[in-house]
Structure formats: C-alpha cells, structure tokens
C-alpha cells in the first residue's frame, strides 16, 4: 500500500470513528447479549437458563403463528415497498414542477407522516368502517367495499393502505435529489426534442437511482419491521391475519415475558432481511447509476 493510500485509510477510520465508537459502545454489547439470550429461556427477571437451539427449533417446527406472521410480513413488504417507491417518485416528480403554492402542496403531502399514530389509527378505523368514507367512495364506482379491519382477507390490504397514506414521506429525499440534477441535462434534452416523459425516464430516474436504491433498502427494512401501525390499528387480529414479525416478538418479549424466544424471532427476522437486502445490493450493480463507483 502506498503512503497516500495508507493516509487515506487512516482518514477513513478517523472519519468513521463516531459511528464505530457508537456501535461498539451502544449497540454491539446489546446485540451480542441478544444472541446469547436467544439461546436461553429468560423471563427478564430471573437468571437466564441455557437451552441451546431449542427456541429456534420450536420456532421453525412448532409455531404456526410464526409462519403466519412471516407470510403476512412478506405480503406486506412485497406490496407496500414497490407501491411506496412508485407513488413517492410520482409525487416527487409532480412536486418538482414549478407549481404555485408548491410549499403548501409539499407540506400537505408530507403531513401524514407527522401526525402521531394514535390519532392516525383512530381516524383510519373510522375511514375504514364498513360504511365509512372509503367504502362510500368505492361505492361511487360501483365497487362493494369490504369490512376492512374485520376480515382476514382485507386486513392486510388495509395496513398497506395506511402505508400508502404515508408514502409522501419518501418525497423529501427524492425532491432534494431532484434539485441536484444539473439543469443542463434537461435543457440539452429539450433541444434534442425529448418529450417530458422521455426526459423523466432517461434523465430524472437514472440520476435518482442512488436515492431510489436507498429508499428501496430502507423500505424493505422498514416494512419487514413494521410495528406500531399493526400494533395500534389491528393488534395483529383477526386471529393473527395481520400479525407481523415485530409485533409478534414484542408480545413474546413484553407481554409473555419470553425474552429468549423473542430474541430468537428477531434473529430469524434479521436473517430474512439480510437475505433480501443482499439480493437488492446484488441487483443494484445493474441499475443503480453512481457518478463514482462506490467501492
């Protein structure tokens, strides 16, 4: 390694040190102890009892609710993440135009993510009532609305609807990134006679791919860990039809006092998320466009 390279590496570790120190002090210890806890039977009060892999084997072979929750989580993530990405991009593109009162529009579209969830959940129960405003609206198009939160088939779409309502949150980063796209690119494209739609696909989207990729990864991790929305809106019901992984482990940890079992669930979830994230990173080489290759 050249002297310059060594100096660069030194600076890297110096610059990264806040995160490294924070990780070692605040996170590494708790993470390691949670691995240890997942191999024990621990009620969080009395000393943990070593049980080896028993929590994991029970989880995989003897807990139908775990598999149901895993499926629900997949379902939720598989629909809400792409939907959130597309809607976020679409809204950001709209908000990037020179509209009057765009500050107001941006704020209104971002607003749903700011409202406390207690309030949101209460409102959504009313909006999603069998004869509520949403079904009234569907009725205008001749569609019979279901009893969203009461039916096992419809409760997951209801949660996805809630996530779509907050899709405006993604516009913040997309907009900030859009503002950074050099205007010259659009001007040149316009001279070449490219239509706005063409420009969106061949300039805006490629320039945004690093941020879209960021939103994708964060969306994945967030969707797999969806918690409060489920916990407050449905409590996982009816009969676990909307139960997802984190509410499940939260119940085990803080309601049933099975810290070991809950930790085992969380590490299984970790593996699932890790798998999908690595997959996303692998495909990223093909579609994410970096000015400089990130090494």
């Amino acid at each position, binding site marked *: 390694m050249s002297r310059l390279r060594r100096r660069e590496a030194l600076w890297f570790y110096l610059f990264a040190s806040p995160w490294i120190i924070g990780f*070692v*002090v605040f996170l*590494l*210890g*708790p*993470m*390691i*102890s949670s691995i*240890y*806890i997942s191999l024990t039977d621990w*009620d*969080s*009060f*009395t*000393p*943990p009892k070593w049980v080896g892999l028993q929590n994991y084997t029970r989880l995989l072979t003897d807990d139908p609710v775990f598999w149901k929750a895993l499926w629900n989580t997949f379902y939720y993530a598989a629909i809400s993440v792409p939907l959130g990405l597309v809607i976020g991009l679409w809204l950001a593109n709209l908000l990037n135009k020179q509209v009057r009162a765009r500050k107001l529009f941006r704020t209104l579209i971002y607003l749903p993510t700011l409202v406390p969830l207690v309030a949101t959940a*209460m*409102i*959504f*129960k*009313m909006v999603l*009532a*069998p*004869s*509520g405003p949403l079904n009234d609206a569907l009725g205008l198009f001749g569609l019979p609305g279901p*009893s969203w*939160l*009461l039916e096992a088939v419809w409760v997951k779409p209801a949660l996805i609807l809630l996530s779509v309502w907050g899709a405006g949150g993604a516009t913040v980063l997309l907009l900030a990134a859009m503002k950074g796209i050099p205007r010259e690119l659009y001007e040149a494209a316009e001279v070449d006679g490219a239509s706005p739609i063409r420009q969106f696909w061949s300039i805006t989207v490629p320039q945004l791919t690093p941020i879209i990729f960021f939103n994708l990864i964060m969306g994945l991790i967030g969707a797999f860990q969806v918690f409060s929305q489920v916990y407050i809106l449905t*409590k996982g*019901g*009816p*009969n*676990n039809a909307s139960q997802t992984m984190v509410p499940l482990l939260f*119940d085990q940890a*803080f*309601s*049933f*006092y099975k810290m070991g079992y809950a930790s085992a669930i969380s590490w299984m979830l970790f593996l699932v998320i890790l798998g999908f994230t690595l997959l996303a990173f692998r495909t990223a080489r093909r579609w994410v466009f970096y000015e400089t290759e990130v090494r």
Partner: protein
Amino acid sequence: MLEGHAMTMDTRLGRRGFLGMGLAAGVITLTACGSDNKSATASGDAEAADLVMTVWGGESDKTAYQKRIDLLTAKYPKLKITLQLIPNDGYAQKVQTMIAGGKGPDIMEVAESVNVYSSKNQIQPLDDLASKAGIDLEKRFGSIGKLYSYQDKVYAIPDRSGAMIVYYNKALFEAKGIKAPTADWTWDDTLSAFKELSIPGKQWGYGGSGWWPQWWSFVYQNGGKIIDDSGKPTVATDEVIEALQWAGDLIYKHGVVPTAKQYADMGADIGGDQAFANGKVAVNTTGFWAISGLTKSKIDWDIAPLWKGKQQAVSAFGSGLAVSRTAKNPAAALKAIDFLTSPDAQQQIIATGQDVPANLDVQKSDAFLKPSWMTKPVNMNVFGESSGFVYRAPFIPQWNEMQKAFDDGLADFWLGKQDARTALTAIQKQLESIVKPA
C-alpha cells in the same frame, strides 16, 4: 446511609461498564442484572423511607393517587413516596425494564397480571407483613381480600375494586313497561327483555359481551370455570360452551346485540359503553368508569347488579398494591399501603370520581353512596350488593398468553363464523400447552 452505599455500588458498576465496552459489554449487562437482583433484606424504620410507587392511568388517576399520598405524608412526615404515573400501554414494559435493570419500584400497582410477577419472585408475599401490621384482609375487603394470591400467599393488597354492573336506559325500559333489572333476573328473563328492547338495525337490547369480564361472568354463572382449582384449563366443558354460545346467540341468533360490523359502522373503537351513551343499546355491562361520562349524557339511566344464571357470579375490575422484591424498606412500603387502603385515604378514590375503593367500609359510607360530583340519583348501593357475587378470576402467571389465545381463537366466533364448541375445543388445546399447572 443505605442510599449512599447503593450509590457507590452504582458508580463502580458504571466504571466497569465503561471499561468493558464492546464484547464484554454484552456479558456485563447480563451479569449486572444478575448481581443487582440480590434481595434487599434491609428493613429499617417502618415510618421513615423514601419510596417509589408506580401506577398506570391518565391524569385523573394521578390526581387521585397524589391526594392519597399527600394524606400519607401528612400523617407520617418521614414516609416519602415518589409517584410515577405511567401511560397504561407502556406500564408493563416500563416496570419490566425497571426490574430487569435492577431498580424496580418499591410499591407497584398490579391487576390481572399480578402473578406474572409473583410466580417469578419479583414481588413479596405479604401475609406475614400484613398480619404483623394488624391488617385483616377479609374484614377490610370482603371476598376479594385474597384476590391477588398465588399458591396460597397474598401478593397484593386490594386497592380499587368494583364489580361489573348493569347500566340500563330508564326511558327505554319504561317505554316498554319493563321493570328495572335486578340480581334475580335469569338468563331467560334477560333475553326476553333484550328482545323487547331491540329494534332491528336501529336499537339493540344489549351492548354485548365480547370482553372477558363479560362472558366469563356468564361462564361462572353457569357453573363453569376457565381454569379449575388444580390449575388445569377447562374451557371445553359443557358449562363454558353453553355460556359462550348464549353470549354469541345474543348477536347472531336473537339479534339483540350489535354485530362487529354494526359496531364498526358506529365509529372507531366503539363498544357497549359508547353505544349505551348514545342510546343505541338499552343495557350495557361495564365498570364504574362509565358513570362519570354518563353524568353529562342526555339519556336517562341508572345502574343495577348483574343478572344471574344457575348461580350469581360477576367479574370485578380493580387493582392492588404490591411490594417489589427489591423494595428498600418492605415494612415501610406495607405501612404506606396500609394507610393508602384505609378509609381516610380510600375516600379520595371516590371523591375524585376515579374508581370504586376496595375498602368495604368506604363502599358503604355516604361519601361513596352520594358522591358530591354526582348530578343525579344513582343507585350506588349496587357496588356493595355486587361485591358478594364476585368470583375469583384465574389470574394465572400466563394471563397475557391466555388472553391472546382467547382473542385469536374467538375471532371467528364473534364474527358469527364458528360455533362455541369448535372454538373452545381449539382454545382448550392451546391453553393446555400454555398453562402448565404449578
């Protein structure tokens, strides 16, 4: 003196925690909670201590508790209590974290999940302390005196306790010429009254019984039990099935209770309490708390004791006060609880309109029967009358898991998609794996 010692302990641990960053941190965190858990056997002056007390609830609960603590401090100036009010959703988690961190509260409010703590040896048995202090639980609290016990030891002193009562819409009853409900009504009497009071799709005789205190009351009235005396779940017995089926039939067979769908259409989180307040249901079974809202309501109402089945039985709501295992001064903690459950302090519970005081003397006092804030004559005697009917609900250590099993297993039943026998047979199987007889 004791405090000072605890502090040096803490800083020493703190330094160790700092030095052992990283890999060691994980191990330390676990050993730390082990070493901290040593029981504080120290018991000093019972009238001088600095105690932490955790309770759940909202702002009105805080007022009521604080008033009682102020009275305590006025009487025992050296007995200081710091009240920690915790929002109810986070209570269990906060207390769990406090205990796991080695610094539990000295006095804690407990209810159905009391034996989560007692079975894990986190709260102290109070029999000896109570008898030493001269508290007669049966005399002071009647049949619920030993409600919060586990394996024949008492772990919490009752503090608030009101039976579930019947709220009925007087105007609707009078319009149909039905007399006020009494404790002697049978299931048949009740059903026929409900039928008369119902107008399909518009008005319902009864608010329903989907919550455990409601349908469990019917189970015990019918001679059934959720958990038998040996600690085994018995929910697939004929008595339980019959009682649950009766509750379900009220909705789907007789149409005298709104369906889940009809409720969802009335508003968010709407249940019997709200439907009763807006006059949509004629009868509702719930706790004391509905009174304060109803005093402002436009409808004309009163309260009555719950009807009976083969026998009288009714659930009670309430909470008790427990002394944690790590309490710095258990004798002082009990002294405080003794005072807080004495008539003087308990009067505040009703004076502030918070709840029904567990102390029987107060339940019979004028302060309770005619509270100053009550705007209309309400038959408050009902609580005293009902207290004799209260059955002992099975507050097993796996309470939360059991409730979850019921929630999940009865979801289809309450939607009218399954009969009681099928649902309960499945739940019984699940409960057998959850509840391990002690």
